[in-house]
């Protein structure tokens, strides 16, 4: 689906079924940036999993992850998987991250997930969460034949002290490229804490 500009109408024009489908339903369901799915954890969970997603027609989706881990450490690494694949070689990520002392460029390939930066865990200050915003191009497999491209920006902190805050951004590929029907946020160790929240939103072509 694509976004179709709504035309001007004249007095006594009839509001037709086609107008409803094109200008209201299709524009709102997949034309504009709109929420698709959302989960907020009320109990700890190993993953935050969205299954049976129907993303055909979306040009790009945003996955907003606001998370914290329960593992007995200051941080834990977060990742994203598609269609349940944890096969090494399915994912490649290049990312840049910095704190106040070191700026680093990292490449993880092959990998078992889109690698993000860390999020705070159990020994980080209370109520502090990390934030990742992923953008996934053509998630519905409308351009099959090449990998799916993912980019993200992220921020995380594990203490109220110098050098303990990070921001970063990355670019990744999911080598499969088939339509994404499942998105899973995973951690290297431990569970996601209560209050961890993921929102998926998407928009279509013009």
């Amino acid at each position, binding site marked *: 689906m694509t976004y179709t500009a709504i035309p001007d109408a004249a007095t006594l024009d009839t*509001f037709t*079924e086609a107008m*409803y*489908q094109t200008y*209201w*339903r299709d524009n*709102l*369901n997949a034309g*504009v*940036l*709109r*929420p*698709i*799915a*959302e989960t907020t954890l009320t109990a700890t969970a190993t993953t935050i999993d969205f299954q049976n997603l129907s993303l055909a027609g979306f040009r790009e989706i945003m996955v*907003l992850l*606001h998370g*914290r881990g329960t593992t007995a450490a200051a941080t834990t690494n977060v990742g994203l998987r598609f269609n349940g694949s944890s096969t090494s070689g399915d994912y490649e990520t290049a990312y*840049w991250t*910095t*704190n*106040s*002392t*070191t*700026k680093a460029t990292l490449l993880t390939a092959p990998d078992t997930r889109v690698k993000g930066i860390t999020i705070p865990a159990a020994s980080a200050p209370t*109520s*502090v*969460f*990390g*934030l990742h*915003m992923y953008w996934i191009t053509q998630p519905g497999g409308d351009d099959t034949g090449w990998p799916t491209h993912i980019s993200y*920006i*992220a*921020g*995380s*902190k594990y203490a*109220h*002290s*110098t*050098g303990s*805050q*990070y*921001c*970063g*951004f990355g670019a990744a590929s999911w080598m499969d490229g088939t339509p994404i029907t499942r998105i899973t946020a995973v951690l290297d160790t431990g569970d996601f804490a209560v*209050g961890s*929240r993921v*929102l998926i*939103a998407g*928009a279509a072509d013009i």
Partner: protein
Amino acid sequence: MSFDALPFKDYGDTLTEALWDQVAAAVNYGAMRPLADSTLGSSQTTITLSSIDQDFAVLLLLITGRGAAATSQVNLYVNVNQDTGNRYDAEVMNLSSSAAGAEDLAAAKWTIAGFPAATGTTNRFGAVKLWLPFYADTGFHKSVMWQNNRMRDNTATNFLTQFGAGWWRDTSAISRIDLTLSSGDFAAGTRVTLHAMGSPA
């Protein structure tokens, strides 16, 4: 209110009140849409967005601005809920250099951009995009992220683009945003647009 995907309707179906309400909720509190838009007609010290609707999931603030102070560049500050206590943290990556990030700990505000000012290149404005996810939640400290450019003149070494992440050490819902500069007023023509997106049903 939230976004509930609109159903297929067939020829001859009636546009019911319930369907109208579903469309209204999707437009008003579902899809990304503008909440506020202001362009300064004259210089002004503070730009305030107050009484922010609490029924959305995500806010996106777009600012195109310039300072009026007699200097080449001024910093853009953000405060929420009129809090000027030392409870703002930030980490900023300068994408134009290999230097490590700039850090703010327990600052009195977030510093999210540098805008050209009176002695900067004429007509040059700075731009910044600030995301405030889950701003209405009260269960955790607020996290934000931003991207900006800093190009106060046509000197290549003054071309910067930055990415930043910030935290506010407070669990309160954000209902007000104040924008100020490190010196002087915002110049006329400075524009602020606030967008919002809701949750799915």
